[in-house]
């Protein structure tokens, strides 16, 4: 039972990193990506393969895994981010399929549908928890920075943002690369935590689950996303739902939220640390 709780905490933390990774993209810039799990897959597989086949040390695998995600984000983002938001969302959806197809095809390297095993177990409980906390803090800083406010401007009105001198395309690219790299980081942690990978772990449902968590807590509230991730991951686990029933529950929740409380559970509210608030008022006064 103790092991069970530990594994629950660790998987929750990893999916927390995933959900928080799409917050700057979806919550703040207004771009819907339904393929962020593909980046998780790329991060996981690149680092896993490097560790298993070439025996590279953990930190190098981590670095290369995250960097390859950034590279992929540049390739995908360049043609699609110039266009209407629908194109981006849809291509991200197809990206998920494409990545799964590649993973299945090159079985000699990736292990194919049978999976890649024997990855050394390097993700320990403290590492995962610290990573989750640091990621949340990083994204919170992002939200309060000038860069983050530029994102909010783009989400509210792209044309107006442009007229204020924001390079919308370059900004979207930066956000996309940043978030993809965090998703990749989650993937690396996941690979070295599970010690086993197969393509189905990173399917379409995982990507959409992340978006659903985000929406449920409130697209504009980081606190909301963190809370909803914890609640929506732990609750079905305790109630032991079948996976289809769980997805039905999620979707019904989302429809209710969209229809009746479109800003999510917490709306715009954020948990603020009082010390920082004092500090801020002092500098302003």
């Amino acid at each position, binding site marked *: 039972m103790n092991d069970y709780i530990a594994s629950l905490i660790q998987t929750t933390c990893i999916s927390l990193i995933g959900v928080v990774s799409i917050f700057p993209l979806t919550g703040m810039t*207004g771009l819907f990506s339904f393929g962020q799990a593909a980046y998780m897959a790329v991060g996981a597989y690149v680092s896993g393969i490097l560790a298993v086949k070439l025996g590279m040390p953990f930190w190098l695998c981590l670095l290369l895994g995250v960097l390859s995600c950034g590279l992929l984000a540049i390739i995908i983002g360049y043609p699609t981010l110039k266009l209407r938001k629908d194109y981006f969302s849809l291509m991200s959806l197809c990206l998920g399929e494409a990545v799964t*197809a590649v993973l299945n095809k090159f079985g000699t390297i990736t292990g194919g549908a049978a999976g890649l095993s024997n990855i050394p177990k390097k993700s320990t409980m403290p590492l995962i928890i610290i990573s989750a906390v640091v990621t949340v803090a990083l994204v919170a800083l992002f939200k309060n920075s000038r860069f983050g406010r530029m994102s909010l401007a783009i989400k509210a009105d792209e044309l107006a943002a442009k007229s204020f001198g924001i390079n919308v395309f370059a900004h979207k690219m930066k956000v996309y690369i940043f978030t993809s790299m965090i998703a990749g980081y989650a993937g690396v942690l996941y690979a070295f935590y599970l010690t086993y990978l197969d393509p189905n772990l990173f399917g379409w449902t995982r990507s959409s689950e992340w*978006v659903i968590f985000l929406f449920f807590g409130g697209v504009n509230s980081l606190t909301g996303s963190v809370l909803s991730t914890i609640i929506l991951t732990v609750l079905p686990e305790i109630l032991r739902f079948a996976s289809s029933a769980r997805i039905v529950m999620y*979707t019904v929740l*989302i429809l209710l939220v969209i229809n009746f409380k479109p800003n999510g559970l917490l709306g715009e509210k954020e948990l603020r640390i009082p010390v920082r608030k004092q500090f801020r008022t002092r500098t302003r006064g």
Partner: protein
Amino acid sequence: MVLFYVQQLINGVSRGAVYALIAVGFALIFSVLKFSNFAHGGLISVAAYAGYYFSTKFDFPPVIAILCTALIGAVMGIILNYIAFYNLQRRNSPNIFYFVSSITCGILFMNILTLMFGTTFYAIKPFFKNNIIKIGNLIILKMDIMILALTFVLLAALMLLINRTKMGLALRMVSIDKDTAMLMGVNSSVVITVTFSIAGALAGISGILLGANFTIDPFLGNMVVKGFIASVIGGLGSLPGAIIGAILLGVMEVIFTVLVGDILSPAIIFVMTLIFLLIRPQGISGHFVTEKA
């Protein structure tokens, strides 16, 4: 050798016909409401199961089974409009909410089907006893001809409806500006409901035909992604463009399946679409949709 490629071309066109049927329903909603309706896939799945019941369980003749499924699809379309989009329209929500709502609804429908029927495959009784026409060494399936013909007939009917009738005029008006249309005395919500019922009927027809062409499982509707790619190639929101795009996509897919194998072809199609977006984002028809200020 030449014969082999001609055969592949025929296979490609017939696969494209299936995609075209999906793409038309998808493009219809896009041209009126300006969002990509992913719930269309959910409707297709539901319709496929309904089609299974009508044609195989109740043993209706094909024409009546198709009509019944179209009716179910239309009803589902209206229900979809009310559970997913009605409140958003009333509140004038941003475009992205429609998008999320539609994806969520699609997932919801498919998973309800999974809960009800499990993931076992069902098969619809074939519509034709002798499905094959042979011309020399070439093989053409009657089913494919029927799908292609039906697609064109439906498209023609739709174009007539949109361009020649009073309803179509109202529909085009709502697609340009909903609020102004209301000021001119057009009941926008009725027009939108009608659009959804038409799209639902199209989803119904594609559902039963897809079911007859492939096997039925709850995630059959995920083919809507192919419909989307087809409408991107053809130009989002353009109905004839969607059909051209779909047939191109079908041919491309079959060619790549022959060249690189079945597993990798989604990746190749993805890369092709990316390149296409880079070169000609407005699509073949050149119908360019931009975000309104």
